[in-house]
């Protein structure tokens, strides 16, 4: 109902004269374009929140139902690897943020460096994740046909990462529910890793484009939006780390 602020009336649509090449034809100004893609990115991240939201809901419910199983399950995770991964990911977020700054201040080499570092740190994360996954594989903690309850029924046979917990054997029925914990673990970290892989793919593409100077000519929207995505993935991990590794350590 309010009057809109008077915006330059009747700006002719074909005033293309001094428009930069990256301005798409249907926008009136670079600011509008940047704002729009920015907003679109945020909306996309909203869908990501809801995507992970479903899993978080499941996690919350089952943790309340099967707490001992979740404790035993999380004792099988290696907090050292988890912490290391958190640090790696925070580092990559930092380099990404620096990358955005480089792009904004038109430092091409800085940008390439930052993106490359981000990419490497992302790969480090995935590497560590792979090590962790392999451990789970070896111990038959991957849900499904080959899932083994051994390490929960008889903790001595397969000591937890931190022996000082002295895990007592779980009752068989509760031990079975550790499969739910690992189902959630793999669903959550798997979805997260998938996001990382997609992110790294885009990063590689961006490094090549950055090399060519694509983002250091004043048009930083793409880098910035990708940065949002990357930070979001980092943010999800911050919660995953807390939920999966940290909050269920004590019976």
């Amino acid at each position, binding site marked *: 109902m309010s009057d809109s602020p008077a915006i330059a009336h009747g700006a002719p*649509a074909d005033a293309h004269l001094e428009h930069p090449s990256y301005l798409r034809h249907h926008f009136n100004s670079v600011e509008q374009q940047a704002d*729009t893609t920015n*907003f679109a990115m945020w909306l996309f991240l909203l869908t990501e929140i*809801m995507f992970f939201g479903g899993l978080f809901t*499941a996690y919350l419910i*089952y943790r309340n139902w099967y707490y001992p199983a979740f404790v035993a399950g999380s004792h099988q995770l290696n907090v050292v690897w988890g912490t290391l991964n958190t640090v790696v990911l925070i580092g990559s977020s930092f380099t990404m943020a620096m990358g955005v700054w480089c792009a904004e201040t038109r430092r091409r080499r800085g940008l390439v460096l930052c993106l490359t570092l981000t990419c490497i740190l992302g790969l480090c994360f995935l590497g560590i994740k792979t090590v962790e996954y392999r451990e789970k594989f070896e111990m038959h903690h991957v849900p499904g046909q080959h899932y083994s309850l051994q390490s929960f029924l008889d903790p001595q046979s397969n000591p937890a990462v931190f022996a000082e917990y002295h895990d007592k054997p779980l009752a068989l029925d509760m031990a079975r*529910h550790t499969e739910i914990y690992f189902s*959630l673990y793999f669903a959550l970290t798997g979805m997260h890793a998938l996001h990382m892989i997609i992110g790294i793919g885009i990063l590689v593409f961006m490094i090549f484009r950055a090399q060519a100077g694509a983002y250091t000519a004043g048009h930083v929207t793409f880098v910035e939006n990708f940065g949002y995505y990357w930070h979001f993935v980092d943010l999800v991990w911050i919660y995953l780390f807390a939920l999966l590794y940290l909050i269920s350590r004590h019976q």
Partner: protein
Amino acid sequence: MSDTIVSLPDQSTARIPKVNYLSKENGLLSWLLTSDHKRIAILYLISITFFFFIGGALAGLIRLELLTPQSDLMATDTYNKVFTMHGVIMIFFFLVPSVPATLGNFLIPIMLGAKDLALPKINLLSWYLYMAGGLLALYTMMSGGVDTGWTFTTPLSTHYVNTNVLTTGLAVFVAGFSSIFTGLNFIVTIHKMRAPGMTWFRMPLFVWAHYAASILMVLGTPVLAIAIVLVALERTIGIGIFDPAKGGDPLLFQHLFWFYSHPAVYIMILPGMGVISEVISTFSRKRVFGYTAVAFSSVAIAVFGFFVWAHHMFIMGISNYAVLVFSLLTMLVAVPSAIKIFNWAFTLYKGSITFETPMLYAFGFMGLFTIGGMTGVFLGTSGTDIHLTETYFIVAHFHFVMVGGMLMAFLAGIHFWWPKITGRMYPEKISQLAAVVTFIGFNLTFFPQFILGALGMPRRYAAYPPEFQILNVFSTAGATILGVGYLLPVLYLTWSLKYGAIAGNNPWQATGLEWQIQSPPLTENFTELPIMDHEAYDYEWLENQKAKEVASVG
């Protein structure tokens, strides 16, 4: 007054403008690689019509099977596959994208005074995703089908069927992303691409309705996506999140599924409501009664729509207290729909009403949607839900809302904007006939199903006790008429592409920005950036405008 209305352009001499979005480029590639929202809308229109008729053919098979109490036309598992595919195709590949992806895509930028949607490439991507999902669904159908019902109920879908649950799930997943991108594009466009002077409360109600629906698409669909992913993982690897044998809770799947699938019914119906607002206003030459209330009721439906999903689970063993909460909220979400119906009725008051085809469809919508909405209250009331849910009552209810409501609105919209989309008029008399045939056929098909449901006939039955036969015969007979009612528009609309009368810019004397430009529009929509200096549905402004034009021409 009537003398100030400028008569329609002389149609014998009028020409379709040489330069328009259709004629700008030629060749298949120019369509497949287009980023013009209007062309993408046409792509969508063709593809959803295709899927509609596939879904319709499946519906025909269902009705034929139900003509007799025994399962004689097809085996029970064939029947199960048929109704599953009918549901999947009609919901994910017709109803969800129907109005938004076609009319919404075509009109929202124009209504806002923009040259295109904010993200044209994403728009094209969403059509490709839609087609990928659709083709996958067709492939599923060809390669043996799937028989879980469109609701993918666990543990049936995860452990007890051997059909193509995975490909169907993937099809729905991909189509879901198409819908997310459409919704995202609309929200961004509505926020960022409005022409100068186009404030929120000057937007047509069509845009408001799409805004509300888009919120639901963006926030609801991902939850469906994750639910489907978990079902797929449970089928393939055997994770146990919904598996009662491993300690999972199958009701959790229901929660996640309906968290999307209930708002999805609003995704389907809200854009239809937007169409009706435009049509009723135009053909009664009058501002929509209580514009603000109608606009806010759309948003209210979107917001409340997120809090009512568990009314699909009243008898599934969720807690009685949760039932109380969800039942109460369901009652609240019914109110905005009631507001809309009465506001539309009062828009007619002191109008100057004509009865072209879109208006007939709109009247049909109002009647059928009222019935559909009120029977929804039967089901939202926790007590009566016990008796009526999972019977043909519920089938009749959502077909009244979806087919009687949404499809009527879709047809109303297609006829209403046909002159704008193609530049040509549809043949009025036969289309009025089609509207009436559809209305009669629809009621004959689905009204008996309310009685069937009250009598207790369960849904998804290939065979049923013989005493239900007579009503099923009525229903099948009605479906035949309904089929004719839907085929007619395809025929005469196609005919009109070549032989229809030239429409001119504004054949309905409507006020929307889309009617102030040439039909079919230019690729850029506007020759110069429009400036909105009046409210929506301002018929006096239109009169003045016309008077000015006449004066300047004179």
